[in-house]
């Protein structure tokens, strides 16, 4: 396999197997620009995916909510927690059965967009391409519709 042209990190998180072209979306939804330094590999050769994106984030681990958000963009990503340049824990992103409180329904007439004491909630219809359906108004969302509405 080709050598990656981005440096190893000492402590932090490597998000691997991001579908190519989606690293920027991951950076955006995790809000990485504002509080951490990161290296991004775009269109990197991959034996599993043909080509992929990869992000190495220095000095930061991901919370459960962040992993849930990540699953909307990169449902087959691998998360490597790095300590002292070595992979300490490797885990896959698990798709939740329901997507709760992390995506805003695109339908402005949906009751979840009103001032009610509920969180948005979606079923997963398909993971490739990622498609979700609001359990309230039943509208389906996919691709950029999801990325642009991650809360």
């Amino acid at each position, binding site marked *: 396999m080709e050598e990656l042209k981005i440096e190893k990190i000492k402590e932090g998180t490597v998000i691997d197997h991001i579908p190519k072209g989606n690293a920027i979306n991951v950076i955006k939804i995790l809000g990485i620009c504002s509080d951490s330094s990161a290296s991004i590999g775009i269109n990197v050769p991959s034996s599993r995916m043909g080509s992929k994106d990869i992000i190495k984030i220095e000095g930061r681990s991901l919370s459960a909510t962040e992993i849930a958000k990540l699953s909307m963009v990169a449902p087959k990503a691998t998360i490597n927690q790095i300590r002292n340049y070595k992979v300490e824990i490797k885990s896959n992103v698990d798709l939740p059965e329901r997507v709760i409180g992390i995506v805003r329904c695109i*339908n402005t007439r949906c009751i979840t967009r009103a001032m009610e004491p509920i969180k948005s909630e979606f079923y997963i219809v398909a993971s490739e391409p990622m498609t979700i359906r609001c359990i309230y*108004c039943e509208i389906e969302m996919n691709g950029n519709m999801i990325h642009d509405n991650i809360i």
Partner: protein
Amino acid sequence: MTGRDIISISDLSIEEIFEIFGAAERLSKAVTGRGIDLLKGRVLASLFFEPSTRTRLSFESAMAKLGGTSISISDPASSSLSKGETLADTIKIIDSYSDVIVIRHPKDGAAKLASRFAEHPVINAGDGAGQHPTQTLLDLFTMWKEKKEISGLNVGIVGDLRYGRTVHSLAIALVRMGANLFLISPEELAMPSHLLRAISVESSPKISNSLERIIPNLDVVYATRIQKERFPDEAEYLKVADSYKINAKLLSKGKEDVIVMHPLPRVNEIDSEVDSTKYAKYFDQAKNGVPVRMAILSKILGEEY
């Protein structure tokens, strides 16, 4: 079905739909004149945040015929919601006054929200552009009663297939039950593509913009209202509305036993000359709203008949 919410027609299996038909038929025979005491002491909360005539009155009539009573908000504009109370809070309170809630609300998904905050069953009587499952049930019941079966029926849905609240869930239910669907509309009011995809999983509907061409195939013509406000100008609206108008001449080109249905209110989709013909079933359809709603209420309140 005791305790069940009826939010979407997809919440019901085909067996359950036929159980409702059976109960509706039994109840329509049993409940004549003074009614029965099946739901005596039970209270229906009728929460219509949008105007309704048929749905609201037929639910209240169904409850009364079964011996129960109804409570309602007389004017949603003066209710606590207009003072800023959430729908969730309103539902919690009204749930404590009643045994079943019927709700119509302008927001999509409002009935689902109500079902989450109510301990008693919630029936969706239309939420925004979403579902209206009891209308679908009474439409299906009318077809079943008139034609004895639904599987294999050629049903043409005509008019506004894009915005019409009732036609989306009807189309989905019809294909699930094995009917052959014909979708007849002007291009600007065609069925949304995501719904068409969902329907096409079960069978491929035939799509046309000419009712005249399709009518010889149909067992049922289901007309819907074409709303003026969907068109850029009056002339365009009149042109389209006129080309979908159902009259005796058009029906003479159809099968001998074709029936015409409409969720009502109609504006001018069906010529009044059709009213007195054997084809017209839209008033029977509206009348069927009461036995179908009696069947639903008795089943979800656990009083089988």
